[in-house]
């Protein structure tokens, strides 16, 4: 009886998973085997392994890596300082606050800020550096992406640091470990789970970024997300768009497995 009730309670979740997780993935996989005219074909996968798409894949991974790296470099110290500040709740609120604003709006704001006649260039001009082109290049793309993703990196690391028993740090220092050694041997291993989930939360969505590539990078950075957008909205070549999506899904699954995202849950049970 109890098992029965339990499965009834689970029903909405099962329906949800089937409708909104499994069905879309299956559909994407299904569409990837059709060409524009609706014929069953493997041509899409063959097209994917041509220089154009491979180069695009490499550049997607490279920029996703850069975005994750810089997010981590900024987020770790920030999360660490956060655990030692007085008004923690206020600071956390300030970090979360920007995520309440629409992504498109934030991106548009950067067009104004980075523009030739924007405030940053005005400042650079006053300081005598002259006018710089800040918009439409790879560094502005990475900067804006890092800005957008950083809360998702800070929060898991902050949580991991919070959960860590502070006496362990004192013990390490008592036993003669230097500051660096304490960090490397005690703090970092104990917060690794937070770092991992932070990296995952940043790397995976940044693999398929598309809007920022046009608005901030002016299509000077081309990622797989750009290709998917183009195939679904412009050419209506759903097959090719789905193929790119399938490759991305597989790549993400591989990353999850390699970084131990799945293994951990098994241990929990």
């Amino acid at each position, binding site marked *: 009886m109890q098992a029965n009730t339990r499965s009834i309670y689970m029903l909405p979740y099962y329906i949800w998973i089937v409708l909104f997780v499994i069905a879309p993935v299956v559909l994407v996989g299904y569409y990837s085997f059709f060409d524009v005219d609706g014929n069953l074909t493997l041509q899409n996968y063959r097209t994917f392994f041509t220089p154009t798409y491979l180069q695009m894949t490499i550049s997607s991974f490279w920029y996703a890596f850069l975005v994750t790296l810089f997010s981590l470099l900024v987020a770790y110290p920030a999360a660490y300082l956060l655990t030692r500040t007085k008004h923690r709740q206020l600071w956390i609120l300030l970090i979360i606050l920007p995520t309440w604003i629409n992504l498109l709006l934030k991106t548009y704001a950067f067009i104004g800020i980075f523009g*030739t006649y924007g405030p940053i260039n005005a400042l650079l001009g006053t300081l005598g550096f002259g006018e710089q082109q800040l*918009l439409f290049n790879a560094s502005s793309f990475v900067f804006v992406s890092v800005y957008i993703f950083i809360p998702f990196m800070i929060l898991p690391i902050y949580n991991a640091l919070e959960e860590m028993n502070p006496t362990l740090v004192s013990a390490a220092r008592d036993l003669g470990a230097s500051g660096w050694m304490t960090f490397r041997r005690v703090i970092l291993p104990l917060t690794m789970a937070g770092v991992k989930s932070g990296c995952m939360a940043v790397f995976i969505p940044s693999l398929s970024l598309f809007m920022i590539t046009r608005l901030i990078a002016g299509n000077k950075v081309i990622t797989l997300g750009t290709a998917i957008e183009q195939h679904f909205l412009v050419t209506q070549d759903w097959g090719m768009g789905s193929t790119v999506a399938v490759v991305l899904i597989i790549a993400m699954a591989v990353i999850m497995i390699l970084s131990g995202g799945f293994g951990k849950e098994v241990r929990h049970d």
Partner: protein
Amino acid sequence: MKTLTRMFLSIIVVALILMYTASRLNVSEGYSSGNTLTIYNWGDYIDPDILDQFQKETGITVIYQTFDSNEAMLTKIEQGGTTFDVAIPSDYAISKMREENLLIPLDHSKLPNLKNIDPKFMNQSFDPNNKYSAPYFWGTVGIVYNPKLAQGIKFDSWDDLWDTKLRNNVLLTDGAREVIGMSLNSLGYSLNDTNEQHLQQALTKLKKLTPNVKAIVGDEIKMLLANNEAAAGLVFSGDASEIMDQNADLDFVVPKEGTNLWFDNMVIPKTAANVDAAHKFINFMLDPKIAEQNTEYVGYSTPNAKALKLLPEDISSDERFYPPQELTDKLEVYDNLGKKMLVHYNELFLQFKMNK
């Protein structure tokens, strides 16, 4: 458990009631009042005063709704459940709607004013013999430039965009047909060319443009050009007039090799509820005086020959928006090249974008 079941049941009941009410509302909106006309048009693309005049003259109540892209309009009409009587899509969208049987043929006997349209804007490839559509406005693709930043370049030829003085100073519209079409035109080919050799030549030529390209952007191009973010940009003439309204320093030019000719035409979707009123409205819009008033308000180029004569001299003689005959002859509508070719164009465009 019991409360849960009860909750589920009540939610389902409420949902069913809402569904029923919604469908009733839809029915009453579409069919109860016989004399309404629903127009589906781009935002800010008609003089509101004209709608008032139409209501006064015919006694038909006008419901006016807007869309912001052909794709959005297409999806909404395809899905059904709407009762748009008149819609104003662009050329390629009309050709698509025609293929998908989404349009009702126009009854030309109810449109005596159709004769006011300049014959050169009739019978285009997207709608032979104007069976389904009547021209509303037309335009071109050209170059908006800032004479102060362009260092004396006049942009009378597409090749001027390749000028080494414009390094990192050109903005392009993010559209495969527009950019590849421009390259084809600059080589003297048709912008509907499907010859692989010509397309490869166009791509090779585009790759040489890369050092000059500052960015390939969407609608933001208007804002960026108006803010003097670049010396020149490839844009639609409609966008150009908007940009020049915002920044008077800028100028627009249609290069001599020819370019795209685009149309926004009036059509009657299959879902129309009041076909008779739709014809009345289309005929009303084709009236020379009304078309003239509308052209002054919207600022695009009118295909109405009689309205053009009524327009003030400074508008009708503006060669940027009403190019001289020998240039107009070189303008081409984007033919529907088929999905396969469109994919190929986009593939080439992607290769150009990835060129470093």
